[in-house]
């Protein structure tokens, strides 16, 4: 895990219809190639010790947001290697401005590894301005 796996840019609250519905955080793949969305098995976000599971998160690539269940069959939609994915986390009221401990974990299948899926875990202190 490196400083660039979680982006400072893009960490903010998300507003829909005038209400703060949650927050977003951008991650950059630690793998050495882009992958099909169908290879992603799970993801979760933990902020200041509060964990949000996959059903509270949408995965955003290429200007579209996906639920994990939707991604299972998407063998030809890609998370491009250099494009940060945007994790949109549902949390009414969002996060308070200030510094937060953010951790992102995601699992994806790598076909030549002994384990069924590989875990990527990134953590960083991020500043939420608004």
């Amino acid at each position, binding site marked *: 895990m490196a400083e*660039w796996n979680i982006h400072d840019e893009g960490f903010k609250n998300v507003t829909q219809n005038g209400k703060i519905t949650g927050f977003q955080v951008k991650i950059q793949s630690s793998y050495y190639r882009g992958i*099909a969305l*169908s290879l992603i098995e799970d993801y979760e976000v933990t902020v200041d010790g509060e964990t949000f599971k996959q059903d509270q998160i949408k995965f955003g690539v290429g200007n579209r947001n996906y639920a994990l269940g939707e991604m*299972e069959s998407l*063998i030809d939609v*890609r998370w491009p290697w*250099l494009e940060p994915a945007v994790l949109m986390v549902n949390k009414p009221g969002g996060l308070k401005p200030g510094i937060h401990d953010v951790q992102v974990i995601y699992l994806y299948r790598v*076909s*030549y*590894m002994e384990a069924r899926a590989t875990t990527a875990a990134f953590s960083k202190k991020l500043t939420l301005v608004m």
Partner: protein
Amino acid sequence: MTNEITRKEFLQTIAGAAAVAAMPTLTSYAQPKPKIKLGVCTYSYNGDLQQRRMTFEDCVADMADLGAEGIEFLGEALLPAYPNPSDQWIESWFSLLDKYKIKPVAYTAFIDTRLYKNRALSAQEIAGRMEIDLKIMKKMGLKIYRGLGSSWDHALELPPGSVWAKAGVKMEDVYDKVMPLLDKYDVTIAEEIHSPEQLSSDLMKRIMDYILKNKTKRIGFCPDMGIFQFRMRRNAMENSIAQGGRKNIIEFIYQSFEKNVPQEKILAEVEKMGGNPVELRLAGPSGIYHGNYNDANRNKPEDYLKYVPYTYHVHGKFWEMTEELKEYNISYDKVIPVLIKGGYDGFICSEYEGSRDVFQASIQLRRHHCMLRRLLMQA
């Protein structure tokens, strides 16, 4: 007085005739420079690319500057809108190659056998996925497909009991389906032989059998130089400790490995010692035995000679070039002569896999090419 006879008299003898047959021809007598060419895999620059220090063009400029002749391109990393590059991008690719005088050589390909969560791909489907990359290669003028090679067993048979393993697809089934495509797209698969593969393995034998049985030049080998690793990477133990392993347990694992204790036995011991996740992982199947050699299992460079005639590409894997211009872990000085002796005339594409800090690739690749040029000139 000497007992020398004239050359004519010598040739008239039976011994002379046999000796002539065995003699190198006049051209080889002149010890021609090895025909081996040098290139770079774009994978080498992944750290700089991910950290935005370099663009793809910067990478091509860098490899041209250090004297590389050819490029190996990692499609799923660098092709915009993979797998559908625009015509405009293809044009820019050729302009770039022309501008920097770099030849298109190889394509680093992958197969996601676990593409679907709940089912395996058939051999036909796998060939279909390979065809996606073959089409790209044709557009890009790339002729060598870096294949899964020693990872086929992993991709088709792991995890044990999984829905993918149960399908029982064999590497040879995939080859049967893909062979007609190789002629269609004029591509050769160079199967990557990657550590911890042993040259005496069943898989090496199966690939050779397939090549010989089908009398084909469309499938061959791409040895990754990591298969000739002769010692641990520098600070390997310290790095394991830095990751959270406890000194006594980490030392136990490394020492057991060097003493050729079987992996399962090391893991059992670590479990008894109450190993933490870092320690358990190191002692597990994806740990110290994955990608490292102890002396029971080390490959000898001379054992590769018989595979050279079937070798169409080489991955110049390296992790650390010292200031003495030697690779700290891999015996290049013993391997290059074997490639030359076997008549290898393809590319060695440097594959840097050391620290991903910015600038390191450019520094290390230059040292690597210095070493390779020296070893080739010494031949």
